[in-house]
């Protein structure tokens, strides 16, 4: 699948060794995964790497990056990635934040915007919906959660590649990431009550993307993001669930690449 020249790096930082697959060429794009954890070099990364240098790290706490003891929240992840950008000397970078990673990217934009250039937030968590509820991923069987993150898992090559075959529901390399997600997002569940009040500080060009068939995050969350960040754009991908990066990798990469161009 891979067309980009992908390397795997271990970056010593903040008390851990950050695992960073990196590929492509051009201006840097930092891709922040969501609660699904790090699923390797994706078709989405590959498509994005056609026009950029893609950094696709596994967050601290998600296999194979160990969690340093001090790091327990989304805000801490945001500080960690600022630290990474500064250490690598790659500022300003474009950022794609996926789901929970979108929440991290939003925090990064609030705290230290000079390290960033443009933001793409895909089904971002972080804002409490006003009318509906975020689906509770922590009390449903994990396989059900995964299936719900797709509009049509059966037609997704990435679904088949990543989740097809025998599925280990408990334990295994994904357990640490699930634990990290519950550590950071359990209560309040996937939002920061202060975030809507802070987001108007963001002046970076921002594109918000959601799938039209998202069973996890209510559509209003994307709209609330758009309202909070002045000048931001909202785009909807057809026949797409919560995980656009898996289900519509080409479309999402094209939207992001055009926005970053």
């Amino acid at each position: 699948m891979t067309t980009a020249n992908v390397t795997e790096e271990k970056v010593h930082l903040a008390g851990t060794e950050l695992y960073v697959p990196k590929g492509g060429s051009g201006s840097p794009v930092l891709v922040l995964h969501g609660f699904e954890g790090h699923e390797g070099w994706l078709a989405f990364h590959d498509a994005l790497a056609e026009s950029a240098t893609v950094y696709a790290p596994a967050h601290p706490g998600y296999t194979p990056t160990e969690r340093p003891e001090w790091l327990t929240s989304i805000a801490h992840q945001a500080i960690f990635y600022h630290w990474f950008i500064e250490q690598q000397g790659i500022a300003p970078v474009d950022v794609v934040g996926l789901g929970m990673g979108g929440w991290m990217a939003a925090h990064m934009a609030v705290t230290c915007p000079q390290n960033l250039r443009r933001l793409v937030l895909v089904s971002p968590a972080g804002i409490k919906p006003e009318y509906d509820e975020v689906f509770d991923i922590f009390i449903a069987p994990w396989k059900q959660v995964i299936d719900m993150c797709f509009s049509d898992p059966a037609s997704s090559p990435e679904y088949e590649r990543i989740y097809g075959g025998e599925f280990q529901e408990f334990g295994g390399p994904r357990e640490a990431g699930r634990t990290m997600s519950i550590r950071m997002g359990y209560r309040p569940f996937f939002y920061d009550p202060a975030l809507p009040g802070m987001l108007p500080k963001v002046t970076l060009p921002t594109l918000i993307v959601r799938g039209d068939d998202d069973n996890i995050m209510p559509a209003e969350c994307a709209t609330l993001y758009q309202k909070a960040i002045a000048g931001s754009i909202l785009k909807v991908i057809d026949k797409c669930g919560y995980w656009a990066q898996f289900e519509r990798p080409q479309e999402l990469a094209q939207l992001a690449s055009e926005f970053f161009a």
Partner: protein
Amino acid sequence: MADTQYYYFTEQPYTGYDPALQENHPALRLTLSNKHYDPKIASDLYNRYHDEYQVADEVGFDGIMINEHHTAPFCMQASINITGTVLAKITQHAKILMLGNPLPVVDNPLRLAEELAMIDCISRGRLISGFVRGGGVESLANNINPAHNRERFEEAHDIIIAAWTRPGPFRWEGKHFQYRVINPWALPLQQPHPRVMVPGTASPETVIWAAKHRYPYIVLGSFLEQTQELIQIYRETAEEEGYDMQPDHIGYLIRCFVCDTEEKAQELGKNFFWQNGALNKQPREWMAPPGYATVNVAGIRRLRAISRSFDSLAYEEAQKNYQLVVGTPDTVIEKLRYVRGLLGIGHLCMWAHDGYIGHEDTVRSIELLGKEVLPALRES
């Protein structure tokens, strides 16, 4: 075995809902709607169960074991301390064995220390204060982060012991709990503090923790083979800690019901399979949400295997395996002697009521246990 202590236990089941729900609903806790709960029935049941505790006290049980669960009909005790307070006033002699307060889901362990101290004073020193981690579902029900479960358990325990034993005022700056002033004006009557016990079903970590603190570990009805494994872990940990495990360090909870005839006992014993034996019918992921087990896959699998054990048994098989002991006093005495001897336990908790067993039959069972079974067990 004159020193073995015997305790009466019931889950205090709420039986007033439509049994058809047991078949149709995927979980009998957390999400089973409380529209099926009738407070009038509950009021009668609470008072009935309290009357039965009084009988257990009068007929000579050494203690009454109580517990706490949330959002579930199988156990009506949403607060173990309320039941404990009632027992402190309505019983005279029996120890109040709490197994136990679920520490991780408590947000103010200092208040818990105060409440337990009050119960110990009011009961004139009859409290045995057990502490539990609570199943994963209790963290979900109380919205406490499962990833903090063990840390909160250990820190809350440390606060309670400190509040009981260290003269105040002092400050506490912990990871999960902070206090400007710990200085409770409610201290336990028993010195240096009420006895602590720890129950469990499968987690080796909990056995090791109990053994390191020299707290008795009470196995809650796990298979005998499994129980022996857990006891062996306790024994080995005790050796590492430089002491010899005694019978007093180990207890076992067994389902046990007695009638005047075998036929009636066999019939009523089926009540231990009420809700199809699935006391905790729930999706597997509720038992060990992410972070609840410290990424110990073997432990997680073991927990789940045991959770399925009782309800997967046929009634006769459950009796063969000593998961359930029912019959006339003579039958039950023989079986309980076997279990006591096999495990070498110093505490035998008798889960002597469940399901739809009525008040009169429950009282009769308690009387037969107290007047015939316990004296025989104390004899030999």
